[in-house]
């Protein structure tokens, strides 16, 4: 394994998006955001002067310092103590509404996903929500979600110190403009094209005049990801690591 894998590119991109964070939380079933947050923590610890990055991975006992039960993450977010969080969606639309519930005439959903988790709260309160969904297709990136688990930012007078900063997929990184309520294509991952992004996106988006290629990790960073980061994230997501980083499993 010498080139940059898709997962390594995403882990690196996420770590860069977390630059400057003091506290990051990662939801259940999110190995790539978890690994990205671990890499950001590694960078903070290696900086001069060294900084601590508080990391909470839900579903992990090891990477989780909360002692007040399941409510503590939400209380911390309300207190302004969570700088960044990750959300996904079975569907995501161009106004950054996300659907984690399902498709069909609710509640008789013909396709049912697990449910909204903490999204209908954290999306409003965490300043740097990173939308992350690997699958980039027209069935995920839709014109209008079937069910709004959590609404994108809108001028409705609702208390909303937080919200999405953008959407990272297998193809690209979109920044989200909270005033215009639109995504703007910022970078495309190596090996992919604007045409491919357009073909696979069901919503309208803006495009920067010149779209850069997403930066990947250099060889030293790849070694960190494959070594200590993979070993650490295996404690929370053993199956992911055995599939993606077998040497570290």
């Amino acid at each position: 394994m010498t080139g940059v894998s898709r997962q390594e590119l995403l882990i690196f991109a996420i770590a860069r998006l977390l630059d400057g964070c003091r506290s990051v939380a990662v939801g259940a079933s999110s190995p790539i955001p978890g690994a990205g947050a671990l890499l950001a923590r590694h960078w903070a610890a290696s900086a001069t002067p060294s900084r601590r990055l508080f990391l909470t991975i839900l579903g992990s006992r090891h990477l989780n310092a909360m002692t007040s039960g399941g409510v503590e993450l939400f209380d911390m977010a309300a207190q302004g103590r969570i700088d960044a969080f990750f959300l996904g969606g079975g569907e995501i639309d161009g106004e950054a509404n996300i659907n984690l519930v399902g498709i069909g005439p609710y509640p008789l959903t013909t396709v049912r996903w697990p449910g909204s988790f903490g999204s209908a709260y954290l999306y409003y309160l965490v300043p740097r929500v990173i939308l992350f969904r690997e699958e980039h297709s027209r069935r995920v990136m839709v014109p209008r979600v079937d069910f709004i688990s959590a609404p994108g930012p809108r001028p409705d007078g609702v208390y909303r110190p937080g919200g999405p900063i953008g959407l990272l997929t297998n193809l690209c990184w979109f920044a989200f403009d909270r005033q215009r309520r639109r995504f703007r294509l910022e970078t495309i991952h190596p090996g992919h094209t604007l045409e491919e992004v357009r073909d696979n996106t069901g919503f309208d988006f803006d495009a920067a005049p010149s779209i850069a290629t997403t930066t990947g990790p250099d060889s030293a960073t790849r070694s960190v990801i494959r070594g200590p980061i993979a070993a650490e994230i295996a404690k929370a997501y053993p199956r992911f690591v055995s599939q993606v980083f077998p040497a570290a499993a």
Partner: protein
Amino acid sequence: MSQDWRLGSADALAAMVPDGAKLAVGTDMVGVAMELTRGLIRQGVRNLHLVCVPMSGLQAELLIGAGCVGTLETSAVSFGELGTPHRFQAALKAGAIRIMDATCPAIHAALEAGRKNIPFIPLRGLIGSDLLRHRPDWKVIDNPFAANDPIVLLPAIRPDFALIHAPYADRDGNIFIGRRRELAEMAQASIGGALVTVETVRDVDLLATEETAAGTLPAIYVAAAAVAERGAWPLGLADDYAPDEEHFRRYGELARTPEGFARYLDEFVHRRRQAAE
């Protein structure tokens, strides 16, 4: 001291749960009373209102598949890395249960109101979501203390019982729960307290020292308890054992169809087969 709190088996605890009961259950990682859950299925309890705090996995899935659930109040049903809850999905598609979709902090907050026995509690977020649109029991008000600040009110949740599995009880029926404080929240909010299974009973006093007292659910919140070794299986229990991944694989194969699920119940619930070891 009297051990009036102690019953002979998980099935004896299950017999305390009437049809239509509202039960608080935790996430798959906190200490889930799976043997007690199997006891409920063996007993054939019906029309439960499950309050998942704040979500559930195999516990809700089995109860739904077995026809024990009337209403499911939850933020999610998921097995995480361990597979797909087929019976949950099928029940919603068929309209076989009433679903009250929530978000995690709403369930925690409503239980907090239940714990205080106050009628409602405000919560941030939610406004503009379809969750709110489908929850007529949730209301939006204007913050009475500030201008232009709409906020959601949630009615309190007071379950009849909380179901908990824990590593051990002490000789007086105090339960060691460690850092998972939501188990105490669930027990305290419940009108009848907690029905608890434990791996073992130790001849100690958990309240004698700060080191254990802080991680203890005091016995006053415990309706009754029973020993059930490996009582969270096939889920894991904190320091004691990991989830049984092989069992989840087998479950996933069987639960795709109603017939396969019925075979699963027959083998692992009614005939009480446990892990292959």
